[in-house]
């Protein structure tokens, strides 16, 4: 770690000011702190979002959307998002109890790890990311590995999830990190099915549109028979080659359809 200063504001306005002043947001620290320890980042000032009540909590809005504030920890979502069981189940399977007690939805989405869980839930739900400046549709938010539509210093305040009729998140873990090796979130809405996949592609989370079309017509695992996943954009590493990941996309998607509730 290099030396840095830290501010712990208690209001969103104070946090905005501190970040505008060159600070970097620190939420659960489950990604940022290990990065600092390895001396891979050298921020002068961190601005903790941990003590800001406005950034915490889960509610339901007038459109029936589940709204999760940016600094809400995974554990709170696992316990509190009962209106959207598949999302609560996703949060309950991130990392381990320590990670879930500190890590937050805003931090996860700002980081956009190509193997993170939340991006799949957000994209498959067609959620809206609310920042201190604007609202960003999920389809416009994820721009590739560790890349998002957020501008410098932009803060995620809230994420609004439309609740599907049924949904399921199927996560096949990478044995070492326990992040997804491939995970698929399937969400069935009245107007169609959305399928988002994380862990598989070097470009980060993506929608599997061929599967969406098939499932919108026929929401059964068999509907996915014969729909091949292109393996060329897949990640190849110690834990699985491209062909294996492409295969898992299909297996996990079918299981998600089968288990959707």
């Amino acid at each position, binding site marked *: 770690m290099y030396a840095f200063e830290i501010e712990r504001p208690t209001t969103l306005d104070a946090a905005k000011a501190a970040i505008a002043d060159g600070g970097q947001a620190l939420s659960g620290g489950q990604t940022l702190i290990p990065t600092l320890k*390895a001396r891979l980042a050298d921020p002068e000032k961190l601005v903790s979002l941990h003590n800001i009540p406005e950034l915490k909590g889960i509610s339901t809005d007038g459109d029936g959307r589940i709204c999760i504030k940016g600094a809400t920890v995974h554990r709170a979502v696992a316990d509190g998002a009962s209106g959207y069981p598949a999302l609560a189940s996703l949060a309950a399977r991130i990392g381990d109890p320590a990670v879930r007690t500190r890590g937050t939805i805003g931090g996860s989405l700002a980081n956009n790890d190509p193997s993170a869980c939340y991006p799949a839930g957000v994209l498959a739900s067609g959620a809206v990311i609310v920042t201190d400046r604007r609202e960003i549709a999920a389809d416009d938010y994820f721009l590739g590995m560790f890349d998002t539509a957020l501008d410098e210093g932009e803060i995620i305040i809230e994420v609004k999830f439309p609740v599907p009729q049924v949904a399921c998140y199927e996560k096949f873990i990478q044995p070492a990190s326990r992040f997804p090796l491939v995970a698929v979130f399937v969400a069935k809405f009245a107007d169609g099915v959305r399928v988002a996949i994380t862990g598989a592609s070097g470009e980060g989370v993506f929608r599997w549109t061929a599967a969406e079309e098939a499932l919108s017509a026929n929401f059964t695992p068999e509907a996915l028979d014969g729909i091949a996943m292109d393996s060329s954009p897949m990640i190849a590493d110690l834990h699985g080659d491209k062909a294996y990941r492409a295969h898992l996309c299909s*297996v996990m998607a079918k299981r998600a359809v089968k288990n959707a509730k």
Partner: protein
Amino acid sequence: MPKDSGIGASSKRREDVRFLTGTGNYTDDINIYGQLHVHFLRADVAHAVLNGVDTSAAEGMPGVQRIFTGADFEAVGSIPCGWLITDRHGDPMQEPRHPVLAHGKIRHVGEPICAVVADTLAQARDAAEAIVLDYDALPAVIDMKDAIGADAPKVHDDLTGNLCYDWGFVEENRQAVDDAIKGAAHVTTLELVNNRLIANPMEPRVAVGEYNRADDFHTLHTTSQNPHVIRLLMGAFVLGIPEHKLRVVAPDVGGGFGTKIFHYQEEAFVTFAAKALNRPVKWTSTRSEAFMSDAHGRDHVTKIELALDAENNFVAVRTETYANMGAYLSTFASCTPTWLHGTLMAGNYKTPHIYVNVKAVFTNTVPVDAYRGAGRPEATFQLERVIDMAAHELGVDPIALRRQNFITEFPYATPVAVEYDTGDYHATMDKLIDIADFAGFDARRAESEAKGKLRGLGVNCYIEACGIAPSNLVGQLGARAGLYDAATVRVNATGSISVMVGAHSHGQGHETSFPQVISEMIGIPEDQIDIVHGDTSKIPFGMGTYGSRSLAVCGSAMVRAAEKVINKAKKIAAHLMEASEGDIELKDGRFSVAGTDKSVAWGDVTLAAYVPHNYPLTDIEPGLEETAFYDPANFTYPSGAYSCEVELDPETGHVKIERFCAADDFGNIINPMIVSGQVHGGIAQGIGQAMMEGCAYDSDGQLLSASYMDYAMPRAGDVPFYTVDHSCQTPCTHNPLGVKGCGEAGAIGSPPSLVNAVLDAINSGPGKKVAHINMPLTPSRVWAAMQ
């Protein structure tokens, strides 16, 4: 009735009170007034000519006391290898110099190049970033077979090539083995990789050096399994410090698994720098450093052939193994793939002809050395896998094939130079079949199949050699140290006892189990007895803990010392009771005169020894303290039969371990609970090796599995509830306790049954048949093999 104390009791581990309440004293807990911190700048290339190191910008940075480079260690000795191997042609192995800090050349990623000593660790790290290295990268040699090719770059320019030795064992058997294989009815051949592992003890390595100028005295606090071995190697071979000026302390150590046996550069560095700077110097490894500087384990590439006659009797075994040494020879690197591996190739079977060839190879990787089991897991894996493969090829039951070839008469001299004293391999197999409920397997398989899963059952046997070993024998084989152990039993005036032992406990529970033995011998409560270990200034010269030797070797020394104490105490008791020494009996902490009602308590006798008012001073000395050194007559040979049942998801290749059963013969047992714990831990590591753990380098020598993001360690949820049984007991015939050692069995005995089970599951399905998969059997590998 289970006993509640003494030999055979499951006494609770007393050391756990401090470990579980955060009151242990680990090396990193040691902070000495005025101490400085060192940060090592480590190589990020695998192979390079190091032209120079420019430390000028770093020297003046805040807090920097001094920056050391390889040049500072030119006059210092090489980090030594503890075992000289003589090759097939009678020549000594090639032994490269192993510098404390890289000098002239960089040979693996993680090799220390500079050491920055500063007031704080952060200052040392800051300054290290300002050091400029001038080097020319060279092509790296990573693959062992490439490394011994004609044009391979040399890891060490002054050696003839990258072959450390080409060992044949037993060389004289070679022709007979070749002939037996030629004439055999069936030969099964298996080529396999025994995967490279990173030990990952929970506590990383730490070293704190201290120097007292007034009496020219050095102290090294270090995370070691064997403080006397470190004192010997570092004092005599590296820094030239005489024993009486060097104390090595290994306090609480949070797991070793072999990787803390060895003498490492960082230990020599802090000891050297403490004197150079006249200040204590501390180093604590980060987890990232541990991945690239702790000696790795295993890493063999093997071809094994098993020849059988027409009746399925084993007639010959021939192996050819490439063993990775890494860039330098670590302390026991040379003996692990030879004497700890070749001697085990008979396994539990009466194969008459065996020949083992091992080529040890230098590569641009971290040094490789002993890891839990050390050589014996590699031997067991290839043998037990090839037997299973032969059974499938011949269409016979793998258990029946094993039984048919079991050694049944003891002592048994193998064709690979060792003599098993006792064992009963049918008994452990019978026990296994019973505890594992083989009879119910078909029903369980049907249940799995109904869920779309495949179920497999795998079995194997193992034999291991523990309690290394007779010093005169290992001396002939090339060991550069004796392998006895030592204990001092110090009885205090009021009768309580401190036992100073050469063995070191870093998870084994010696502080609990050793007092059980003394308690049994004397008949005083266990809590009257304490074990002292881990400090060369307090304990006699023993060789430490590895190779499941603590109880068999050091425990035997302790018994001998206690016997001497008891004999002397009997003389004192005879005097006190005015009886003849020959009539004195010791039972339940009282001395009595046979055939009379006269008796004195243990405490009365010990008090007399230290307050010798009424005492035979002309015949015996006051005091009650005895030391014994014990050099074993042979290895001990624990053995057993293991089984594993897995459920495989054919769609993903994911394997769930449903059951794991172990029937072991460890001879006599002091504390059954501790023995079970040792077996559990060993199996967990075997599961790690077989299913999850794989150290990987890319072709440039970059470590790909350099953190827990990519190196998979087993967690509680990855392992099943174990069924372990150690009721089959054939006591060791040559040590006083009849004990054999249990620390490594689980890690040695478990990988073959895991792999055998997965293959059984795959081959029970409708798909492609698979003969072998290399470990670790990750989901992606299993799935790929099935396609």
